[in-house]
């Protein structure tokens, strides 16, 4: 429609998107008014003239409209606040990426301890996403929606939504198999308590959720666009309004249920920690007090009667001096028992499994050291090799440091970082007794995420040298763990695993 009033108004309004919508709206109004005047007997030309006059001054309409629509996105504080919040949340999920992701299939040694707070962090991220999205829809803020679209893809990339779905699945598991919050508490301490039939849906659920959220964002952007361009779109909004309301109701129900579960789980965590600590001490003491060379049947029997543990048999591929390996698992403690049928020799190791990334489930700080704790002994050591661990897995490469030929021997009692260690006395006693432990075998350096206390070493000539090796998990270091090898009470080797 060629109308001077509309032309003047659109000329004065600078926002291009708003121009089209304002023009369409004013045109519709003037056409209605022309119809009115035509119906009461005016000619078409006169009707248009009168309708235009009734609109009043173009400046009176355009100047305030221009003021309303001229705000640039970068001048709006709200946009910056939203972008900063989203960026901060993404950085958090990126930094704690390993904690947010429960997939351990690629690393057989990794035991992911469920971090309960992440269930809620993940849920809050998702809820906040929808809250901001609904607000952006109301205010027709495309920039925020685009930021949200980028955010949800980025968060999914870092696995930020996975814990939420893990918690959802865990909840479903509890509902279907009878309400038992104990299962939920156990899952905080050990990944293996996640029911395997639910685990396979984890990635699928997170991917579906992201796809829905992305679709939702696209709907909102298209909706805002159609509004701005003055296109009809009420029916277009309906499907996503249904999605939005359904999501809101489900989230609400889920929030309440998870709040109850988490509150109950929190009350049980301390008890569970104490129980696990007690088991761990019991098992380590059992190993450290064992007589080297004990008959294998007798040893297994003792484990069964004294610790009430039953073994799970494991194939011994790749370890030529061990015929059988049995594992005894209880919570995040694994005892490993190896036997050689021909020589009737046994080796026993306690693998104290903890996850260095999840302080929440931290059982015993004794197993954690800083790299700087080794500073006082490093001058006496030199790096002699850089090699892969026995299993050749790429993540298990180690730097091997040995004592220098002319250096003063390092005795276990003189290692400062061991002074306050709960097991120092036990380890010292073991070293002394190990001088006669000619039937001990090496522990296979399963050190990736484990604190290990092992006994015995075997040389290339199949000669057995009694030793004690202790593995610590390293914090704030490029190395994941440090294994100290003591022979005859002297430090012989420091293996730093990457």
């Amino acid at each position, binding site marked *: 429609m060629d109308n001077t009033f509309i032309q003047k108004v659109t000329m004065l309004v600078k926002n291009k998107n708003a121009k089209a*919508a304002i023009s*369409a709206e004013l045109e*519709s109004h003037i056409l*209605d008014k022309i119809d009115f005047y035509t119906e009461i007997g005016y000619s078409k030309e006169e009707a248009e003239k009168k309708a235009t006059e009734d609109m*009043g001054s173009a400046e009176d309409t355009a100047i*305030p*409209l221009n003021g309303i629509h001229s705000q640039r996105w970068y001048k709006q504080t709200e946009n910056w606040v939203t972008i900063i919040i989203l960026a901060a949340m993404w950085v958090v999920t990126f930094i704690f990426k390993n904690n947010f992701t429960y997939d351990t299939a690629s690393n057989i040694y990794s035991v992911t301890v469920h971090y309960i707070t992440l269930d809620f962090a993940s849920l809050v991220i998702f809820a906040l996403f929808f809250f901001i999205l609904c607000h952006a829809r109301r205010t027709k803020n495309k920039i925020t929606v685009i930021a949200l679209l980028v955010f949800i893809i980025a968060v999914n990339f870092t696995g930020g939504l996975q814990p939420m779905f893990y918690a959802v699945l865990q909840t479903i598991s509890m509902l279907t198999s009878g309400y038992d919050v104990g299962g939920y508490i156990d899952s905080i301490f050990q990944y293996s308590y996640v029911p395997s039939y639910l685990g396979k849906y984890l990635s699928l659920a997170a991917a579906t959720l992201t796809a829905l959220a992305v679709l939702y964002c696209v709907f909102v952007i298209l909706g805002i666009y159609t509004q701005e361009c003055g296109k009809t*779109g009420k029916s277009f909004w309906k499907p996503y309004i249904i999605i939005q309301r359904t999501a809101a109701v489900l989230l609400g129900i889920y929030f309440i249920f998870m709040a109850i579960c988490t509150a109950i789980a929190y009350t049980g965590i301390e008890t569970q920690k104490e129980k696990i600590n007690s088991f761990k001490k019991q098992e380590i003491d059992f190993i450290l007090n064992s007589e080297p060379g004990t008959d294998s049947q007798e040893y297994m029997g003792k484990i069964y009667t004294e610790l009430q543990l039953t073994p799970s048999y494991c194939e011994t591929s790749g370890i030529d001096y061990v015929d059988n390996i049995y594992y005894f698992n209880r919570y995040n403690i694994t005892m490993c028992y190896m036997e050689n049928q021909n020589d009737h020799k046994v080796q026993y190791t306690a693998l104290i499994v903890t996850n260095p990334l999840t302080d929440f489930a931290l059982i015993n700080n004794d197993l954690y050291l800083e790299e700087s704790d080794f500073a006082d002994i490093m001058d006496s050591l030199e790096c002699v090799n850089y090699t892969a661990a026995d299993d050749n897995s790429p993540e298990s490469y180690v730097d091997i440091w040995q004592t220098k030929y002319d250096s003063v021997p390092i005795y276990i009692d003189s290692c400062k970082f061991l002074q306050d260690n709960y097991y120092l006395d036990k380890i010292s006693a073991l070293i002394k007794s190990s001088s006669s432990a000619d039937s001990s075998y090496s522990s296979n350096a399963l050190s990736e995420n484990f604190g290990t206390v092992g006994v015995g070493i075997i040389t290339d000539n199949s000669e057995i040298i009694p030793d004690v090796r202790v593995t610590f998990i390293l914090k704030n270091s490029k190395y994941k763990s440090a294994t100290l090898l003591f022979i005859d009470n002297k430090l012989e080797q420091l293996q730093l695993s990457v």
Partner: protein
Amino acid sequence: MKISKELIKGSTSLLVMSVLKQEDMYGYKIIKEIEKLSEDVFVLKEGTLYPILHALENENLLESYWQESDGRKRKYYHLTKKGVQRTKAKEDEWKLFSTSVDKVLASAVAY
């Protein structure tokens, strides 16, 4: 008798929101409805209605959508929940104002 612009200006938003309480309407219909209900006392300069509608929409008191009716595409305005609450508050404010003005005027007449 004509009412001064200043007096109308302060209450236009309330008039617009009040008529939108009944049903969703487009600009032209809003003006007609206000004229009808006020028995032609409030006759707005039609172009000035749109800045008011857009400002109310910006404050989330109104929502808008485009819809075709009688073969013409029109932008309908819908009063939001926040808009309903604001209208109620403004109406109460207006009633208090109006009653108070009446009281003052009545007592002035008595003297």
